[in-house]
């Protein structure tokens, strides 16, 4: 097994094991910590694929922003020491059957599909190319989604502040 395959196996084992632990854990803070491990392993996969900027964004926003936000909200809204209630085993069985059925169908389709491989030279993914593409208005430019995302983030910020403000009743 080459180095890349070994790295991929370690990262994907971490991802699969900790994602299963996230959805089946009975303590909520442990579920948040396992989610953090999943997100860091996903950033590791992005580093392996040489998408350094994207991996840095993943670590900063997901692992450093969203998981911290989730942990804050856990501390603010629930009794942290108590165990989570679980659903009945019949509902769990139905959910497992549905998820497994979907997974099997998707995996069979993926394994049977012939992906068209073009043998081209690898392109450049350094930050100057990313910056030029992100702000250009040409054919592969992303200036319009960039501005729209700014408006979306502004709306989300205003909405979250107004929703979570303490009201003087």
């Amino acid at each position, binding site marked *: 097994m080459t180095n*890349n395959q070994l790295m*991929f196996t370690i990262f*994907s084992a971490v*991802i*699969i094991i900790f*994602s299963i632990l*996230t*959805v089946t854990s009975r303590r*909520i803070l442990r*579920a948040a910590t396992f*989610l953090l491990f999943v*997100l860091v392993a*996903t950033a590791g*996969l992005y580093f392996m*694929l040489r*998408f350094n*900027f994207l991996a840095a964004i993943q670590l900063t*926003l*997901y692992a450093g*922003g*969203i998981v911290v*936000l*989730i942990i804050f*909200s856990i501390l603010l*809204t*629930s009794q942290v020491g108590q165990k*989570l*209630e*679980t*659903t009945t085993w019949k*509902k769990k069985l139905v*959910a497992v059957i*549905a*998820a497994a059925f*979907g*997974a099997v169908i*998707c*995996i069979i389709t*993926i*394994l049977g599909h012939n*992906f068209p*491989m073009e043998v*081209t*030279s690898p*392109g450049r*993914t350094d930050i100057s*190319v*990313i910056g030029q*593409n992100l702000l250009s208005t040409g054919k*592969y430019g*992303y200036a319009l*989604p960039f501005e729209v*995302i700014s408006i*979306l*983030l502004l*709306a989300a910020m205003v*909405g*979250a502040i107004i*929703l*979570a403000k303490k009201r003087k009743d």
Partner: protein
Amino acid sequence: MFEGVPLTWFLIVSTIMFFVGIYGFLVRKNLITILMSIELILNSVNINFVAFNKILYPNHLEGMFFTVFVIAVAAAEASVAIAIIINIYRRLVNIDVEKMNEMKY
């Protein structure tokens, strides 16, 4: 094939993560754990985009940009969802999803 790792391995890992997230969305009763399952689903889709971009179209960057926008939208959605959850907790003093069965009239 990316330096020895075939494309289907990436897709199978992201498929498993996606359906684990769907299982968590269906099973969990706490609102915040449902939000965590949604984050798992979004991350699996990101891995898909990035793998397709790197292996099938290595000269382009569209997959990476789409992933950046998905991460930004997920951050905005998680913050608004948590603001709603905090509001619900102030009214009902618990965040069990089965106790929220009344719409405001």
